[in-house]
């Protein structure tokens, strides 16, 4: 039995472990991980155990299914030893491909039948057409991403007030702008009817966050904050919080 593919898969899984340890490069890791996780482990297990003889196409479909089964089993094993980590997964794949290699070495017969379908003749114009089609498809996807990113149906300003954790009597007032343009606001904080803080014409650019700490009397029950838009003298937002809630 020719074991080159089994040996190759084992080396591949070792390479994946090294890459997972050494780099965060997503492309390299994906190129190594996806084929191994979704097809190669199933392929080597089918080759080594050899439950059935099938043509390559059918073998490929089974290999995906068995790879999934192995991956799921791996999830349970790794969870049981609290090792559901990238390195844990890489080691699991080494164990699977290594075990398949060991079994494969002891086997002496071939299970895989080679491809029986005829491939179509390929000319340069076909390659160019496929290339153009791929570019258009990629363009369609990027267009969808672009349109989604630019969809901002609602213009809004988030306004909040919370008790500061582990700081009795201190409150946190915040504004985040989801508007299309820079806005100016007046912020007023009151406690039991009296003003405890006031900021005039606070400038907030789109996506900018503004926060400020306010100290209030611990004896009061609730504090209230109001947001005004001075440009058109509009009362814009109102929030409140319990003074002692964070203490």
């Amino acid at each position, binding site marked *: 039995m020719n074991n080159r593919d089994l040996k190759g898969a084992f080396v591949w899984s070792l390479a994946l472990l090294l890459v997972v340890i050494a780099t965060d490069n997503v492309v390299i890791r994906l190129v190594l991980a996806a084929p191994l996780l979704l097809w190669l482990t199933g392929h080597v297990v089918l080759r080594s155990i050899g439950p059935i003889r099938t043509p390559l196409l059918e073998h490929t479909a089974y290999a995906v299914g068995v790879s999934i089964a192995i991956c799921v089993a791996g999830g349970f094993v790794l969870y049981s030893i609290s090792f559901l980590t990238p390195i844990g997964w890489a080691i699991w794949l080494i164990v699977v491909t290594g075990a398949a290699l060991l079994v494969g070495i002891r086997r002496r017969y071939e299970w895989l039948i080679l491809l029986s379908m005829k491939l179509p003749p390929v000319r340069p114009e076909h390659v160019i057409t496929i290339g153009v089609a791929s570019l258009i498809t990629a363009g369609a996807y990027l267009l969808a991403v672009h349109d989604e990113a630019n969809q901002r*149906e609602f213009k809004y300003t988030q306004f909040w007030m919370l008790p500061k954790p582990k700081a009795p009597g201190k409150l946190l007032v915040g504004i985040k702008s989801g508007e299309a343009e820079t806005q100016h606001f007046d912020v007023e904080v009151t406690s039991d009817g009296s003003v405890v803080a006031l900021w005039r014409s606070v400038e907030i650019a789109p996506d900018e966050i503004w926060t400020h700490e306010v100290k209030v009397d611990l004896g009061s029950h609730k504090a209230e904050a109001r947001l005004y838009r001075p440009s058109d003298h509009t009362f814009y937002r109102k929030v409140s919080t319990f003074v002692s809630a964070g203490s």
Partner: protein
Amino acid sequence: MRHQYPHNWLSFVPVSQPLRAVKFLSELIGPTLYGKPAEPATPSSPWITFLCLVVSIALLLMALGHGAGRRGEMSAPVFFWAGVVLMVLPLASRIAWPVIARSERLFLVVLLAESVYLYKLLDDPTHFGGFDELLHWMSANDILYRRKLFLDNSLLPISPFYPALEILTTALANLSGLDIFPAHVVVFVVLRATFIVALFLFVEKVTESPRIAALTCLVYMACPTFIIFDASFAYQSLAVVLGILIMLSEIQTSQTQSVRSIVLPMMLIGALAVTHHISALFCAIYMIGLFVFQTLRRNEPGRARALLAVLVVTLMLLAIALPLVMAKNKILGYLGPAIDAGISSFFMNLGGHSAGTTREAFVGANGEVQPVAYRIIGMLSLLLIAIGLATGFFRSLCLTAPTTASGWERLLWIVRRQWNDSRAVLLTLGAFGFPLSVALRLTESGWEIGNRLNTFVFISVGLVIAVGVIHFWQSRVRYAIINLALGTILLSGVILSSNTYIRGQYRVGGDPNSIEPMGVETARWTRTWLGAGNSFAADRVNRTLLATYGDQNVISSLGNGVDESRVFLSNTISPDTIYPIKEGKIDYLLSDLRLTTAFPVLGEYYERGDVPHGRPPLPSRLLKFDNDKRAARIFDNGYIVIYDVRRFHE
């Protein structure tokens, strides 16, 4: 043996003699097989490359349509539907063409399957948008970031007991460093191709015809669940792949009759057991049905039947009994009411007692009626499927009868329990599930069951229609008409696959159409400023956003048995209003004032059956906690307000 049909077949059309009418009907639905053109050995590269180009242009048009829809432009449907027609019709025509190579057919069905997946991806290109997707994303996040299985999922309590899809996706995310969404795209591209290849090989083995296999795949892709539901990041999407692989490997086991061969389906059954409950159930029903037919069949080898029995027992023990032992209450609590209500609703409608349980076809839960063109295509498709089933049923049933006879004599062989392949007989009878699924889809409580039934029933529907097309229609009508009919069925699948096709502007209670940046930002705000794991009550859509983007513990009747809708929808703050807050120990309430602007697309604001008659809830109901001393309005963005209600239960 195939028979040449007389050219003047229209002469059978009844004019005056009743016998002619009977003969016409008999020829129409009878089991006689006609014609089977030989397939050339070489696939056509020009056609393949041309169709790849056509599909890419179609996808670009659909992307333009979505973009126009997001901007609220009127041109959106023109671009979008031009793209859909361009994707479906040329590919369907070529796949159905009588004389093309097996490998070309296979390539083209894979191309169509992947195109349909890209169709779905263009709708939500960078994040999960479907309701079910968000539920499973939550479990996947738990596995990826907390590195634990079986953590509670308040949105879908049953999900942690079926973690296979999440394990697979997070394994790739762990190893590659990708986030869950891109990792799932890679996984699903592979799953789609695997499913359609496995379905092709399965039908090809049963019928010994690559053309029937390709046509079955083509019709299957018109199944409404295939296009969106089974392409969603949810457990059934993986389960259907495992299910079809189990069915395929069972054939292999049956042919080789070796004990070793059973290892493969066993491994797949093991994976299915932790993937999806309903799919495991359908797979078990198929295997039991097959075992019954193998037992009924004359001269069935005992060893093959014994191996099948082992598979049936394994499936029953691993995929049905074991999950029930492990999580009986959650599984029965989740599936039981849905199945019970669906069956009751179906029989009530059957008996003519609608009692408000009937769903009107082509009318949304919010009363919105589909455009006339959609309704026409939908009805036409239903008619075409019915014709396909009528003309293909007996032909498919008797496809593997071991006789060269023609006419109804073939049926006698089946009645005498003599056939070559029990799968063909079983699958043909499975087509009876189609009218059942249609009837269930027309009931309020049964449509979910009918919807899921489609996933499995369409394998039978595809097979019967494919046999009908090849062994009856292709020798009688022009190919253009057959192609048009198949294209219409596929278009109808697209129409029925979703409530809204083109990505548009925000809609109330419309799941993917209600998810937009402001809601997501609010959910993220809760995680940043309140921390993770607070108890939140909110509407259906914001609940999923809070649980996923916000990492909050959401309270609902499904997850906690607490119906929170009255907290929001009641007019005043009464003991009844605050009961769910106390019972569910709710810390925060999220009121989305946009709910007051329209009826929900999917028929529920918070919980099923909570939509008031007449008009949407008044804003004063959602803002009633403003005047209560025990509540604090901690967040406001103009549309969404969050109340701190911890003092109600502290």
